[in-house]
């Protein structure tokens, strides 16, 4: 019998082109998604060296990071942004690459539209010049973020130079508590293992909680693998994934579909496969989570308080926490639910899919955004926006006083003009609470969509479970 292998091992081995003596491997890359921020210099590199794109149909180009989320039909006001977005289209045409225009209904955040279009599939290797490419692992693809030089490398060679990652497995079993979502689970995991807990690893998520979770929820979990330091997140594809993919525009059809599903069914870790790191969680221990600091590991259950740096023994760690509290302008011992917010952002590749919007709308329905709070909802793609509108979610949001926007990365990274002003504080469904991430001097608290809506209607971080009685 062959050695039992992990899911990661199987996908890796099936894409190995060559292994050099020193262990460096040439790994075949099936698909690449390209956006406007990390690609211009890669196309320049191709031109300078007179190199063609090896497999044009293996790429998909779309602008998302820098697009306006309102009034876009009137064009892009910011000149630098406009140049960057126009350049993406020009590069697509020059090299003959599949391209989705930013006015097309299929436009959206790279990590939302890959699965949505069926471009992402189990068992393939997929890269994008964006760290949250880990998202696509929810469908059982080996997907990771790369830099611009590597974008160019994939364009020119359809491969990457890589070394195998470590195998890590996080298993979550048990009963989930009421109000606990995929976002709370991944925040709790990062709080436990830390932002370097997965460094050098591909994290496979397993256990009954993951099996019972929707494909969208798995995307939320895999998305933030990078915040745990991992290269990628993975979930073994199952019937839910096949049902999710069937009929999507770029998914296989007819006999090819049957053949693909046969293969996809083999994509799971063998019994007895060895992992370098194993961590287990009991779902019953996980509460709805919020972040209080400036790193995604600085999180806690919503019922808790801001930690006290003097309780921390490690000097460097104490300083880091101290600095975070100063930046966030919060005091040790303060109840998290006493933290007042100025803005709410519901969106990003972590939480902008239809079930995220539904969860937020359930909380927003019949309530009003608190006085002095600005709240925005930015769907992950034009198709999600359409579906949400067909379900009447936009009406629920706008009646509650939320701003209903057009798709893009928006305030996740504060690049397109949707941003926090210095000193402003947000409850955000995105993935990074770094200093200045949502705008210079801005302060970010990471939350789930339902908790973001709860914060919007109360004006402070709030426990969504206590909402109906308390408000």
């Amino acid at each position, binding site marked *: 019998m062959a050695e039992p292998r992990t899911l990661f091992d199987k996908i890796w081995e099936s894409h190995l082109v060559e292994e050099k003596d020193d262990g460096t491997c040439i790994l*075949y890359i099936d698909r690449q998604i390209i956006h406007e921020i990390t690609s211009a*210099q890669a196309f320049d590199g191709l031109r300078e060296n007179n*190199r063609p794109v090896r497999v044009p149909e293996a790429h998909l180009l779309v602008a998302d990071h820098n697009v306006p989320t309102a009034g876009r039909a009137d064009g892009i006001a910011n000149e630098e942004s406009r140049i960057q977005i126009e350049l993406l289209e020009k590069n697509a045409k020059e090299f003959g690459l599949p391209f989705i225009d930013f006015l097309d209904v299929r436009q959206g955040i790279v990590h939302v539209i890959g699965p949505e279009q069926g471009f992402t599939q189990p068992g393939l290797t997929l890269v994008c010049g964006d*760290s949250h490419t880990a998202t696509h692992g929810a469908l059982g693809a080996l997907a990771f973020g790369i830099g611009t030089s590597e974008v160019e*490398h994939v364009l020119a060679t359809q491969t990457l130079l890589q070394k195998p990652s470590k195998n890590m497995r996080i298993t979550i079993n048990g009963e989930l508590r009421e109000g606990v979502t995929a976002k709370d689970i991944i925040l709790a995991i990062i709080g436990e293992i830390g932002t*370097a807990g997965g460094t050098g690893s591909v994290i496979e998520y397993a256990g009954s909680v993951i099996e019972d979770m929707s494909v969208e929820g798995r995307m939320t979990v895999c998305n933030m693998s990078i915040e745990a330091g991992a290269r990628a997140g993975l979930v073994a594809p199952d019937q839910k994934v096949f049902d999710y993919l069937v009929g999507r525009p770029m998914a296989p059809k007819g006999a090819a579909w049957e053949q693909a599903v046969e293969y996809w069914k083999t994509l799971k870790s063998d019994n007895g496969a060895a992992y370098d790191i194993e961590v287990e969680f009991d779902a019953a221990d996980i509460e709805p989570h919020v972040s209080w600091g400036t790193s995604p590991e600085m999180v806690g259950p919503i019922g808790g308080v801001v930690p006290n740096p003097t309780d921390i023994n490690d000097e460097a760690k104490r300083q880091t926490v101290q600095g975070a509290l100063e930046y966030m302008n919060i005091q040790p011992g303060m109840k998290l639910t006493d933290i007042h917010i100025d803005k709410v952002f519901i969106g990003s590749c972590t939480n902008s899919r239809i079930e995220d919007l539904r969860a937020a709308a359930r909380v927003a329905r019949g309530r009003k955004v608190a006085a002095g709070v600005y709240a925005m909802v930015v769907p992950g793609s034009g198709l999600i926006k359409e579906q949400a509108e067909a379900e009447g979610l936009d009406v629920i949001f706008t009646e509650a006083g939320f701003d209903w926007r057009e798709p893009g990365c928006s305030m996740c*990274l504060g690049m397109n003009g949707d941003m926090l002003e210095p000193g402003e504080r947000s409850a955000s469904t995105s993935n990074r609470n770094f200093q200045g991430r949502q705008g210079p001097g801005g302060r970010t608290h990471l939350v789930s969509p339902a908790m973001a809506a709860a914060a919007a209607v109360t004006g402070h971080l709030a426990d969504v479970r206590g909402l109906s009685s308390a408000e």
Partner: protein
Amino acid sequence: MKKFETFSGVAVPMAGHNIDTDRIIPARFLKTIKRTGLGVNLFNDVRYNEDGSEKEDFILNHPQYRNSEILVAGDNFGCGSSREHAPWAITDFGIKCVISTSFADIFFNNSFKNGLLLIKVTPEQRDALLEDASHGENARIGIDLENQKILRPDGGEIAFDVDPFRKHCLLEGLDDIGITLQSDDKITSFEEKQKQSMPWMQGARV
């Protein structure tokens, strides 16, 4: 890419952990379509006031650190986004080497592809180098990649590990793509095999 040569230079100490790529180069500077010119915006939001004047307390604004060529940093340096603008900004500023106990994966890859050497040391070694670096101009640190040694101002040496392939590329100033294309026939035969065994992988393409 320029060949990496042995040098000695001023090292700037930045002891904080988890210095992320948003800190290194905030997102709004990613609108550039060039690789160069980002050095002035390195650490922008901690380096400048809102009116564009320099923040006096930020270390790179101290006269003795303005020409730093080495950065000694806290754990998990470069975590966060995949933006290659981070190593572009660091090298454009003039820094050729970053020393820490650990680096985020993507940042690690991106750096070597831009001629930026990253050296992993133990926490004790890092603390010693932070101490050296605190003396600024008076304590230049040497970096000898060929022999894999950090040369401390007191004459002491710290040996370090580096991936042989990355070392070779850095010393020779080699471009990865050219190297990979030497395996063109292997890539082609992989593609042909995949077309046979997993035709939908191609068929699914737009």
